[in-house]
């Protein structure tokens, strides 16, 4: 039998973003009836879902998708405009890299205070105090005011408080984004322990690997709505697709005399639909459009494929034919390239370059990272590419 731990029904939350903020009394007094301009921002727009007890539930979404708002509503920090949240048991939140500390107080005082905020009695929390400090590995700094803590120490302490608060439901926001390797390992162990103990955990993260590793189910939020809910692997792929939509959004540096303009560069799948991610082994179909701004006899264009760290992998290019008529301003050129895809999973970029032809003296256009895309599903590998190979090992001689 299923026991829901969290039940969210048709949740709405919007914020008023004042276009000119009135925060002084004078303005209120001087212009008491002037309509204050607001822009309504619908952070959450009708979200409904259920999380079972003992479930490890992942929430992913791009920045500004509404996932933090959802978390804050679950944690009772914001009040919903509409809709209902029901929750079973006590809750421990870990939001925006912390559980809410007063930086003027020492670690000990903060730990007790936080425990009480999460619904424990002061005595219960005092009993757990040593365990918290020990988990956070802050024995030497227990009497230090938090304002003197490093950010890593703060996160450790916050995580330790949340762990020891012994809540039924844990809300965790981006904990793995910080901390050194040792602490991350500790978090990972703690996650496994909590999972085994049957705690209900809601984890918000950008790390798809974390979601796939721990979560029973995951939910993708975009523009305040549930985009997808279900298998973590599928949600993860959808998230990646969403995240790299218009991969050209990556930092671009453009140089050259700009006699040409790159109007678009995208990847297509076999059905001719634009895609942002390519599965390992599937051909990469690169399409693009260039507009001619200055007359030229011909152009050559070239691409450099680089990996996430900027290492060049492969160069390829094409150009207008020798006998083609010269190009006039307003002419449009279509780029079409098919590439085999031996790339292993990861993020890749393409630099774009164009030169006059047959007079290749000046670069007319150079766009760095004109396109970014993801390759997924490749075999685990140390390298950047998986080259076709045939190898065998056989016994030549038997003793």
């Amino acid at each position, binding site marked *: 039998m299923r*026991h*829901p731990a969290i*039940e969210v029904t048709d949740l709405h939350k919007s*914020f008023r973003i004042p276009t000119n903020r009135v*925060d*002084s*009394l*004078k303005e*209120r007094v001087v212009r008491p009836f002037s309509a204050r301009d607001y822009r309504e921002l619908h952070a959450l727009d009708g979200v409904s879902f259920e999380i*079972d*007890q*003992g*479930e*490890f539930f992942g929430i992913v979404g791009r920045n500004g998708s509404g996932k933090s708002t959802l978390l*804050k*509503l*679950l*944690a*009772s*920090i*914001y*009040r*919903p405009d509409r809709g*209902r*949240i*029901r*929750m*079973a*048991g006590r*809750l421990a*939140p870990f*939001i*925006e890299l*912390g*559980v*809410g*500390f*007063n*930086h*003027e*107080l020492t670690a000990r*005082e903060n730990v*007790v*205070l*936080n425990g*009480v*905020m*999460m*619904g424990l*009695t*002061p005595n219960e929390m005092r009993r757990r105090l040593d365990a918290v400090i020990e988990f956070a590995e802050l024995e030497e700094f227990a009497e230090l005011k938090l304002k003197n803590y490093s950010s890593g120490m703060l996160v450790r302490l916050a995580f330790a408080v949340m762990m020891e608060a012994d809540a*039924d439901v844990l809300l965790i926001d981006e904990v793995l984004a910080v901390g050194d390797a040792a602490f991350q390992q500790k978090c990972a162990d703690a996650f496994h322990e909590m999972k*085994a*103990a*049957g*705690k209900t955990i809601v984890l918000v993260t950008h790390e798809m690997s974390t979601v796939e590793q721990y979560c*029973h*189910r995951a939910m993708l939020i975009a523009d305040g709505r549930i985009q997808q809910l*279900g*298998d973590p692997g599928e949600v993860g792929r959808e998230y990646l697709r969403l995240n790299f939509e218009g991969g050209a959004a990556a930092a671009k540096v453009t140089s050259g005399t700009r006699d040409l303009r790159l109007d678009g560069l995208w990847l297509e799948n076999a059905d001719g639909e634009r895609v942002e991610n390519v599965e390992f082994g599937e051909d990469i179909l690169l399409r693009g459009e260039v507009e001619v701004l200055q007359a030229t006899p011909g152009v050559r264009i070239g691409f450099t494929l680089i990996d996430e760290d900027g290492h060049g992998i492969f160069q390829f290019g094409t150009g207008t034919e020798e006998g083609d008529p010269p190009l006039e301003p307003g002419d449009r050129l279509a780029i079409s390239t098919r590439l085999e895809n031996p790339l292993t999973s990861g993020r890749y970029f393409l630099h774009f370059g164009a030169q006059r032809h047959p007079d290749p003296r000046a670069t007319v256009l150079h766009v760095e990272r004109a396109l970014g895309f993801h390759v997924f599903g490749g075999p685990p590998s140390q390298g950047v590419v998986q080259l076709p190979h045939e190898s065998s090992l056989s016994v030549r001689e038997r003793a």
Partner: protein
Amino acid sequence: MSTPTQTPPAAPELKEVRGPSALGGGPRRFFDLLWLMSATEFKRIYFGTVLGYLWSLIRPLMLFGVLLFVFTRVFKIGSDKVEHYPVMLLLGIVLFTFFQEATTNSVTSVVAQEGVVRKTQFPRLVIPLSTVLTAAFNFCLNLAIVLVFLFAFGVDPSWTWLLFPVVLALLFAFTAGVSMALSVLYVRFRDIAIIWTVVAQVLFYATPILYPINFESDSTYERILMLSPLAAIFEQARVWVLNEAQAPTAVEAAGGWLGLVPAIVIFCAVCVYGVWVFRREAPRVAEEL
């Protein structure tokens, strides 16, 4: 979709989550938090400094010393007309220090606790009330000094001292009401901090602290003074603690119960407004910060 392998032994009931509020979360938690926050704040202030608690004594005592000198040596209004002027002055200063400290610290209290407010769910009302309670701890210690002065100046203990807690209760209620309103309004209107320092200064002079209210003095001024609930509270404190024959009670100073009605109305209005505005704003404080 994989399902969790293990169901937890206990299955707590689903309860509605209503979002933040002024009071929510049960009285137990409220008072635990209130006490804990006040106590840690009190410790923080006085254990973090070299002279510790002495500072909280020195501030009112310095003010007392200066004012006593000015009004007994320079202007000579105190020593002639009032039997126990120094004690009256000290009592007034200690009472007002509590009011001023509590309200001034409350103004920024909610904003100062931003980190906690934005990340944790807890009854928001705890914040201004713990500030008032911290000031009250201070005040209790300062009262010991007043007691020393009472004996030193030969004020006889009287049964009316037993009524002093009534005055304190009224002062606490008024202070809490003002603090609630200020703390939550400051989130939206940052001018409140400046305005309040001025208002507090005015209130200091508009309350019978430096000067006594006497039967024989001009009654129009007194009527105006007695519009302030603080004046009534302070006057009554003087009557009950100092037990002087020439000190009129709050009722007498206001010219009868009818004259005291405005002060009572203002008192109630401030307390009700404080609670009302705090309850109204509390759910959205985290968003406004």
